[in-house]
């Protein structure tokens, strides 16, 4: 099937089998490999992107559901030369080690700061319920998100 969507502000048309997942449209068909796949059960959150403005696990979206959607991936929020404040906070707070969960974690973190008022330790941890990190123990991830929440 043909799917037309906006990815990182650019219109994209892809021809994919109907059972294709959004994460595969992004990774395989558009070459945006910053969005990762860490499980086959929608539990790890490594594939989190912004889908029509909200954080969504892109492995839970079928190609047909992506028709007309606006999608933002980790590649669309900042560059090495011009980082998004959340990217900068993750670097500054050492909120990543192997980096595999990081793109999904950052996309979820931006959504949290944008949509939850008065974020604190508890609400940040609750907001990360669907994103798994095995390296950091979350400690520095929470610090990074808190620092962006405090500054905004």
């Amino acid at each position, binding site marked *: 099937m043909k799917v037309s969507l906006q990815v990182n502000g650019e219109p994209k048309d892809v021809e994919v*089998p109907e*059972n294709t997942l959004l994460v595969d449209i992004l*990774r395989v068909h558009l070459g*945006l*490999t*910053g*969005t*990762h*796949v*860490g*499980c*086959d*059960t929608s*539990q*790890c959150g*490594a594939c989190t992107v912004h889908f029509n403005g909200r954080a969504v696990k892109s492995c839970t979206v079928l190609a047909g559901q992506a028709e007309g959607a606006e999608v933002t*991936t*980790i*590649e669309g929020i*900042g*560059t*090495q030369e011009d*980082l998004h404040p959340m*990217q900068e906070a*993750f*670097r*500054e707070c*050492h909120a*990543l*080690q*192997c*980096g*595999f*969960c*990081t*793109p999904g974690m*950052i996309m979820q973190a931006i959504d949290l700061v944008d949509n939850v008022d008065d974020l604190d*330790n508890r609400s940040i*941890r*609750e907001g*990360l*319920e669907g994103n*798994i*990190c*095995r*390296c*950091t*123990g*979350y*400690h*520095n991830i*929470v610090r990074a998100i808190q620092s962006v929440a405090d500054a905004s």
Partner: protein
Amino acid sequence: MSEAAQVNPQGIGASVRRREDQRFITGEGQYTDDLNQPGQVYAAFCRSPYARARINGIETTEALSVEGVIAIYTGAELVADGLGDLPCGWLVKSKDGSDMNSAPHPPMAATLANYVGEPYAMVVAESVQAAQQGAEMVVADFEELNAVIDVSQASVSEPIYESVDRNVAYNWALGDEDATRMAFAKAAHVTTIDLTNNRLIPNALEPRACLGVFEAATGDYTLYTTSQNPHLERLILSAFVQVAPEHKLRIVAPDVGGGFGSKIFVYPEETTVIWAAGKLRRPIKWVAERSESFLADAHGRDHVTHAELALDEQGRFTALKVQTTANLGAYLSTFGSAVPTYLYGTLLAGQYKTPNIYVEVEGVYTNTSPVDAYRGAGRPEATYVIERIVERAARELGKDPADLRRMNMIQPEDFPYETPVALVYDTGNYEASLDKAVLAIDYDGFEGRRAKAAEQGKRRGIGFACYIEACGLAPSKLAIELGAGVGLYESGEIRINATGSASVFTGSHSHGQGHETTFAQVVSDKLGIPYDDIDVVHGDTGRMDFGLGTYGSRSLAVGGSALVMAAEKIIEKGKKIAAHMMKASIDQVEFNNGEFTLTDSNQSMSIQEIAFASYVPADYPEDLEPGLSEKAFYDPGNFTYPAGTHIAEVEIDIETGVVDLVDFVAVDDFGHIINPLIVHGQVHGGVAQGLLHAESRRSARFHCRHDRDAVYAQSARSKGMRRSWCHRFASRDNERDYPCAG
């Protein structure tokens, strides 16, 4: 901050923000599944649904008719093609002197499947979906056999292998049995304990993956794979499995999304993929699904232990006796034999002056996934035995658990300290760590807190872990004498380029540890070259001589030291060039912070000027080779021995049973710290994984091992793959901000 860090703000001791983060936070990391090759095809594996079964035949006709399916390879075909078994890299001897009994471990099951998830066929297709569809259509004629699941029953169960009596791979022992027995005979008090250290599944967030490429024009094989250990992978695949000669096989481990030990080993999947890439002459990619990771990644721990501690009238430990049965799984994984022996038994002295120790370890086969190194590997298992029995002894004797530990600790004046279990601890001050931890958690105020909690219907408790770890995993000669199949040195190379920048190559591998940052800090510090002018390269057998990868906290201690040695060689050669150019004798040249300076003179040349001169040798010593590139292999004389005290305070709601970790203190003595920010991060992650293990309970209710990290199905007896697992990764609701002292 060290003096050096003040001189060099990005040198040793500085909390430099990691340079690798730039690509990870922008989605520009290059993990194995992010790599693609023209003409690439995809692999899916058929896995045994039975814990133990005979394979009477495999029918592939229907699967081959699936659109897009190109080829199907079975275990029997690998055998027929002469592919060797996957070897275990450490030969452990039983206490009677006999070699361990290795069960043959074919890359894919050919006639017998011995654990749920063991691959027996690989389907290759033009798409992932076609490969998976094809794999579902492969029909194997399985004859289910009685499986051995329970580790404590393994040695009295039906043998899994004809060649392995009682399912015992080895019965290993260490220490003086007679002296230990005599000490127990004189003991004023004996404490005993029975422990189960449950099986864990490592679960790095990036599933294992590989991409095998064969170039027909040159006969070169390249395997991109999620490895902590690319050179060892090449050695095993060439020397033992014989996929390709070592000089025609290149292993690249690009960005790797965590390992925790599980990516050290050589697995069936990448072995089959690289072999088949040569047969098909097309690049083949395989990426594990998480469900496969649970079944087919090597697991950790899985010990059953009985221990006894003898004490005298004052409470001094006089002897420790430990009997452990270690579950090795269905096959000996790459280092599976060494983890419950040389990485476990040798650590049973812990931080204490126990004069007599005797340990026996029975390594047994079961029909479960192979067990190998996971986070700490053997050493945490030793700490668990020691600290649990010491705690119990304190309670039985009515002694304060901190005081009992303190009175038995090895003291600073005792170093170097030779333990009764083969190690020589170089240095330490264990009591200092304990004191600091006790203060940080306000141990004196604990009884008050406990009473207050009781008023609210909660039980509050406090637990200590005074640990020691033998890191660095060397020296090679000793390791080889004890059965290691390889040395445990590390290589390092520093190439100073003509323009004065440096390219640094290490045989260790970073998969979250931050070597690209910390190793550059070390080289910057030693050579005075700006940090930003130094690049660190790792994880590619085509780019550096040799290496033994990253595990066992060895990278900086061994790999970092190799780079220091290479830097010293650079300075030595630089002095010769500088002396020639400044018309002085070598003795008159000093090197400091990037400058070669003449003593008693203000004349100096920078390392960048010397580098340029070495590549454009117009005014140059006649007997000296051009260029400024040096390499070193460092083989350490001893392990390193980080140690410390962690204390946890927990509260249990007796109405609901909910356990709340209310406080946690970690005091660690890591010696010379290169980057405190990274070290603290490593401790956070280690503590989180440790807490999850501690919270876990083995359960028989679901007929499976119920780990906090995972639920692992012991057997799948139904026709389909009846596996039961659920993710039990780090729960965020029971973690807080805990103090972390360096």
